[in-house]
């Protein structure tokens, strides 16, 4: 059964992974971090990523049509790409109330976005379910 750190370390084994964090998008708190931080430091990048995740989660335009009640995260993941890297934000569905997501930062040259998206989804599931 993996804990937060094990989950993040597993994410870091993906090709091109530079940093990973588990972040709460309501408070902006990083519940766990490994590797490099994309911005100034992990605290700042967590707060910034949280703001982005919150916008995606709260705006109806991005929500799935089948779950308007908001029991599950309305968005699965969020991809941001720039010239040298990818950011992958994966919302974690928990059996209790929470607002958390996994944030993986990938180097563009070695990163495989499709693979990372699948693996991060699996990790998000394993993190909270046996």
């Amino acid at each position, binding site marked *: *059964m993996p*804990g937060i750190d094990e989950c993040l370390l597993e994410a870091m084994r993906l090709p091109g992974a530079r940093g990973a964090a588990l972040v709460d998008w309501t*408070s902006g708190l990083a519940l766990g971090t490994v590797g490099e931080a994309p911005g100034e430091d992990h605290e700042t990048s967590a707060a910034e990523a949280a703001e982005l995740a919150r916008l995606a989660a709260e705006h109806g335009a991005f929500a799935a049509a089948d779950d308007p009640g*908001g029991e599950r995260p309305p968005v699965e993941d969020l991809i941001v790409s720039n010239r040298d890297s990818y950011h992958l934000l994966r919302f974690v569905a928990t059996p209790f109330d929470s607002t958390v997501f996994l944030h993986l930062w990938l180097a563009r040259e070695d990163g495989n976005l499709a693979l990372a998206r699948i693996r991060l989804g699996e990790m998000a599931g*394993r993190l*909270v379910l*046996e």
Partner: protein
Amino acid sequence: MVATPPPPPPLPVRDGALAGERAHGALSPMLTRLAEERATGVLVREHGTLVLHEGRVIHAESPCAPGLDVLLTARGTLDEAVWRQAADRPGDPPGAVRLLLDAGLLAAGALELCHLGALYDAGYFTLAPSGAPGRFRYEAVARPGPLRPVPVKALERETLRRRRLLHRLWPDPAVDGAPLIRADPLAAPPVTPRRRAVLDRVDGVRTAPQIARELGRHAFHTLVDVRRLAAAGLVSPGPSTAAAPPSAPEVTDPEIALLKRLRDALEAL
């Protein structure tokens, strides 16, 4: 020719690092000291309790913040009977947690998430400005097994960050503790599903921490929602009752800052 007098000796320079550290520990000098001496025991403050193990926080509790039990049972993650059975076992709550984990009733990640969330949540209220000095009891506490302790500095930094966040969303802290009243503006802005659940429970009696408990959510997260709702003109604070929980300090009010410093100085004596 007039001789120039020798220049006066340079003024003493305050140790920047040390001053920064002190300023950082402004939330509670007592707590800073306890962390430095790696104390083990229980710190009781007006609005909550912190349990320290070798200078790090392993557990936090506040009447304003729902505990692990509420969070885990509210949405049926754990059956209430199962929790009570585990919690009734000899030993303290961490023992119960260990039991649930070993029995495979709870995933390690889920538990860690819940535990850290609850700790920072209760810590936020515990470190709120208080009218009375805190008391610390040195005593042996059970090491919480699989749960990660949190450094005092991390908790203090996060608490300050959360105060600033709330202040930025809506600068009036009155909505944090007062019974909430619904306002119906003419052109009501759209409300997200999560905030809708909060708004639906606003009835002129319940406070934000009470709504959080009913929803099985962190109290601070509900404060964020309530401040956003207040900023949107959808809720306003009603007349406060005597038993109202503490509201966050006005971060910019110099008088409160002064009172806080005085209180902290008294605490440090």
